[in-house]
C-alpha cells in the first residue's frame, strides 16, 4: 500500500495498468457521448438557422450542413422579433438592477440587523420563491388592470421585482452573513450608523453578490413566459412569447423558428459563457445552499 502515500498520483486501484487505461478510455467515451446529447440541439439550432426555407423543409437532409451558409433566416427572424427582443431588454434590465438594490438592502437588514422574529420573517419571504404563480395569477391580473398596468412593460418590471424579492434577499442575506461581525462592530465603534456601516463595510464587499443577483434576475426576467403571456398583449410581448408564437404561426418554417430561438437564447447564453461562475452561484443559491 505504498502507492497510497504518493500525493499527486491517481489513487491506487486494483488491476493492471492496461485495464486502467481501458477504464480511462471508457470514461472519456462516456463523457463524449453525454456531451453529444447536450450539443446536438445547439448544432441543429445553428445549422437549420443558416439554411433557406426550401432547404430546411427537406427533413431528410436536416442533419446535413447547409449547402450554402447564409444568415438570411436570422435576418428574417430578426425583422419579426426585434421589437420583442427590445421589449425583453426593457423589462429585464431595469428589473435586474432594481431587484438587486432592493435585495441588497433586505439582505443587509436580515443579516446584520436581526430582530426578534426576523428569521421567521425570512422563511416566510422565501416561501414566495417556490409558489406556483397560477395560485396568484387571477388577482394579479385584476390588480394590474386596476392600476392601469395591464399590457405595459412597467407592469412586468414591477412583477419581476416583487416576485424576485425572495431570491435576491436570500442571495444577499447569505452573502452578508459571511462578512465577519467584527468588521460591522468596528465600524459601529467608529460612530457609523445604519447607512454608514452599509456604505463603508458591506457595499465595497458586495460586488460579487451584485453580479450574481444581476445575472440571476436578468436571466429569469428574460426567460419568463407565464407572466408575460398572461399580462401583455401582442405589442408588448417579450421575446419568449414571440418565439413561442413564431412556432405556431409559420407553416413549419423551421429555419425561421430555429433562428428566432437562437436569437432569444443569445443574451443569456452570452452571460453564461462570460460569467459562468457567478451564474452557478445564483443557481446553487436557488436551492437555499448559498
Amino acid at each position, binding site marked *: 500500500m505504498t502507492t*497510497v502515500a504518493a500525493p499527486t498520483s*491517481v*489513487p491506487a486501484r486494483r488491476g493492471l495498468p492496461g485495464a486502467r487505461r481501458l477504464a480511462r478510455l471508457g*470514461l472519456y467515451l*462516456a*463523457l463524449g457521448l453525454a*456531451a453529444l446529447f*447536450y450539443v*446536438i*440541439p445547439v448544432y*441543429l*439550432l445553428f445549422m*437549420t438557422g443558416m439554411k433557406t426555407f426550401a432547404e430546411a423543409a427537406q*427533413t431528410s437532409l*436536416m442533419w446535413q450542413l447547409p449547402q450554402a451558409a447564409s444568415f438570411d433566416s436570422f435576418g428574417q427572424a430578426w425583422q419579426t422579433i426585434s421589437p420583442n427582443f427590445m421589449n425583453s431588454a426593457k423589462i429585464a434590465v431595469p428589473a435586474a438592477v432594481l431587484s438587486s438594490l*432592493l435585495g441588497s438592502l433586505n439582505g443587509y*437588514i*436580515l443579516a446584520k*440587523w436581526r*430582530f426578534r422574529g426576523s*428569521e421567521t420573517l425570512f422563511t416566510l*419571504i422565501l*416561501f*414566495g420563491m*417556490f*409558489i*406556483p404563480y*397560477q*395560485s*396568484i*395569477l*387571477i*388577482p*394579479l*391580473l385584476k390588480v394590474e388592470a386596476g392600476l392601469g398596468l395591464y399590457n405595459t412593460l412597467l407592469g412586468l418590471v414591477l412583477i419581476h421585482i416583487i*416576485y424576485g*424579492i425572495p431570491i435576491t434577499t436570500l442571495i444577499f442575506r447569505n452573502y452578508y452573513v459571511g462578512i465577519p461581525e467584527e468588521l460591522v462592530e468596528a465600524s459601529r465603534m467608529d460612530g457609523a*450608523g445604519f*447607512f454608514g456601516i452599509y456604505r463603508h463595510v458591506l457595499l465595497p464587499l458586495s460586488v460579487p453578490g451584485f453580479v450574481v443577483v444581476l445575472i440571476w434576475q436578468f436571466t429569469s426576467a428574460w*426567460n419568463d*413566459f407565464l407572466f408575460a403571456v398572461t399580462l401583455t398583449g401582442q405589442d408588448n410581448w417579450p421575446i*419568449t412569447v414571440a*418565439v*413561442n408564437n413564431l412556432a405556431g404561426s409559420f407553416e413549419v418554417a*423551421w429555419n425561421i*423558428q*430555429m433562428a428566432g*430561438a437562437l436569437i*432569444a*437564447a443569445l443574451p*443569456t*447564453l452570452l452571460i453564461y*459563457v462570460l460569467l*459562468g461562475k457567478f*451564474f*452557478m452561484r445564483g*443557481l*446553487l443559491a436557488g*436551492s437555499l*445552499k448559498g
Partner: protein
Amino acid sequence: MRRLSRDRIVSIALLMPAVLAIGVFVYGMIGWSLWVSLSKANDLSFDMRLNGLANYIAVFNNIRFQLDLRNTVVFTICFVGASLVIGLLLANLLDRRIRGEAFFRSLFLFPLAISFIVTGVVWKWLLTPSAGVNILFGLDQATNRWFTDPTVLHIAADSDAGRFMASIGLGGLASSEFGIPIALMSLVIAAVWQMSGFVMALYLAALRGIPDELREAARVDGASEWQLFRRVILPLLAPVTVTAVIILGHISLKIYDLQQAMTKQGPGFATDFPASYMWQTAFNDNEFAKGAAVGIVMLVLVATLIVPYLIWNRRQDVTR
C-alpha cells in the same frame, strides 16, 4: 444607545416595503385566489359570492384534470428520477481528474441559461416524427411517434394482471387513467436535457466536499470501489439528493412553458398539466373560480413539498 435604537427603527422601516410587497402579492393574493376558488366567479360578471366547494368538486370530477394529475405524477417521477441518475453519473465521471473537466462541466450546464421556450422549440423539432432523431437514427416514424403518440401504457382490465387486481378490489387501477402516456416521455427528455446539469453541479460540489482521507481509509479497509461508493459516498450525498428532489420536484409540479412550446395538450390530453388547464380555464374560458381552484390545488401540492424543506433548512441554519 439612542443611536442604536434609531438605527433599529430605520432598519425595520426599510425592510417594510419588501415585507409589504410579499405580504400583499404572495400571501394576500393566495388568500384572494382562495376566495375566488370558493366563489361563483365563473364568467365575466365575476360574481364573488361564496359557492362552497362546488368548483373543487367540478374540477376534480373533470376527466381532463384527472388526466393532468396522472401526467403530473408520471412526469415528476420520470423527470426527477432520470435527472438524478444522469446528474449523479456525470458528477462521478467528472470527479476523476478528467482532462478538460471545466469544458465538460460548462457544456452540461449551459441549457440552464436558456428558457424552457427555446428548449421546447428545439426539442419539438428533434422529436417531430417526420424529422429529427427519427431521421438521424433511421427510425420508423409510424412506430416512433414521440409526443404525438396517443398510447397510454396500462394494465388491461381483461388481462391476468387486471383480473387479479379486480379480485383484490383494485380493478379501477387497471385503466388508462392510471397508465403511463408515451407522449410524456418526449417532455421528460427535453426537461432532463435542460435540468440534469443542475443536479450534476450539486453532486459535484458535494463530492468535492468529501475528504480524500475518507476514501483512502475505506480503501485501506479493503472496500471495493463499488462498496466505497455504495456505503460511504452515497450516504454522504443524501442531503444533496433531498435538495435536488425538492428543487426539481417543484419545477415539475409547475411545468408549463416547456409544454406550451413543445407539445401543448397532446393527443387525448397525454401531455396536459394542471398549469395549462388552469390557464385555459381562467383566461380563455373566463371560468375564474375553477381556474383559481386549480391554482390552489397546485399550491397545496408544491407546499407539501416545500414547507417541510424550508423548515428543515432553517433548522440546519440554526445548528450550523
